[in-house]
């Protein structure tokens, strides 16, 4: 398992969280403690063990290709923080 010193800046950027400096500090020590606890997993040999992503195994759940009614645009936009006509409006996009 990798060294549990987490790169807070990088992870916060990936998660789109603008953390304050004190928040980052607290986060760093708390996550390090949690990751140190999690480190105990290293003791467990999982070689040849398949990963489980669904506890109850199922396959092939599909629906037929049938059109169902949409919701009116007005309802779908009702929660929008900002809208313009029938669009959601977002601040200008600057590629990072």
């Amino acid at each position, binding site marked *: 398992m990798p060294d549990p010193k987490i790169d807070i800046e990088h*992870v916060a950027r990936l*998660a789109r*969280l*603008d953390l304050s400096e004190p928040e980052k500090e607290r986060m760093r020590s708390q*996550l390090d403690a949690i990751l140190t606890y999690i480190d105990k997993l290293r003791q467990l040999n*999982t070689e040849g063990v398949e990963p489980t992503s669904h*506890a*109850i195994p199922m396959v092939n*759940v599909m629906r037929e290709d049938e059109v169902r009614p949409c919701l009116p645009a007005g309802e779908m936009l009702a929660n929008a923080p900002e809208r313009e006509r029938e669009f959601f409006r977002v601040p200008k996009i600057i590629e990072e």
Partner: protein
Amino acid sequence: MPTIAELGARYRSGETTPTQVVESYLQRIETLDPQVRAYLTLTRESALARAEATEKRLKAGKPLGPLDGVPLAIKDVICTKGVRTTCSSKILENFVPPYDATVMVRLNAAGAVMLGKTNMDEFAMGSSTENSAFFPTRNPWDLARVPGGSSGGSAAAVAAGLAAGALGSDTGGSIRQPAAFCGTVGVKPTYGRVSRYGLVAFASSLDQIGPFAADVRGAALLLQAIAGHDPLDSTSTDIPVPDYPAALGQGIQGLRVGIPSEYVIEGMDPEVGKAVSAAIEALKGLGAKTEKVSLPTTNYALAAYYLIAPAEASSNLARYDGVKYGYRAAGGKDLIQMYGRTRAEGFGPEVKRRIMLGTYALSAGYYEAYYGKAQRVRTLVRRDFQQAFERVDVLACPTAPNVAFKLGEKEDPLQMYLCDVFTIPVNLAGLPGLSLPCGFTQSGLPIGLQLIGKPFDESTLLSAAYAYEQATPWHARAPALP
């Protein structure tokens, strides 16, 4: 307070009417909830309208279903059309879903009456309901203590008689642990038994909706109403739903009860240990056969959970970005700033912690060591249970290693996580689990017994719990609220 089954009987006999009952619950909420603070949103008018509708059916001589006119509290993580659904988060403070969760469609069809939406740990992350962005909920047995979490509002509402039953959600113990802390019955169904459609996702592969009630029969009636296949949830199974209430009262003669040796841990409250041992003796007295079993991976389940759940959460919570719904931070001059500030201001500390942890566990270079490893450990946890269930029908153990603690007592996140050490393995394996009262501490705080069953075998859990409940006095006790 009457149980769910009693309410139905009184409606049918004409002893009382749904409107009277709903009004009296609303009155009780007005008096008591300022202290308990179980509810975030009350839906008075629609509750009275629904009660009236039941009354009309009753007057028209139509047969009443078991939940007709029954007042319920709904955890605020379940989407309710036209009623704000916040997940106790600032980021969804004003979110009004344009659709109903499948469980709400079913409850509404059954004539149940929603009184309001209950408080919780933000996005169901926590074990004390202190992580609500709005206010903490109090334990009705001791207002200085937490009700457990994350479904603390639902558990407290039922315990304080502010609802006849409630729905919660359980990702790592969020129904069973607060049920234990509040002295109610709480059921976490098998993964796939109840539709998750409309349940705001925390960790998709672990989340399940389940009921709270004052007694086992009430929990069985609620589970009956919400269980079953839903084509809108690809992970819901179409295995037939048995008649749960019918399973009650069949006795537990010959029931094989496994006692996992790993479920006694250091630092456990000795009063919890004693009460649970006594409960196991009581089960024996009722004809059950007990047997020690071993679940050797238990010790690693918590660590695996704290990779899997945050990883899935970091993904599920990516959608809260200030674009389509919910909170948007002011003053972001471009999109990147808007995203970063909205999420930093909109989420509370525990949610941010888990988003960070989960993002890290999935990030390039760490996936196999963290997420991959945890999913393999999950396989081992499942195997443990499978092997145990070759020999026994149910497992019995404490629901939590401790009883309700004081508000603010557990500041350290890791200490808080340890509250769920007995409930988390059940979620990892997708199994059904039930918590019911099995005694009280000297200071009068409830203690919970957890029963764990085979996949889709909720009936056995309910019938064992019912037998125990009928043989013991605990469920009759109620908190003394002023």
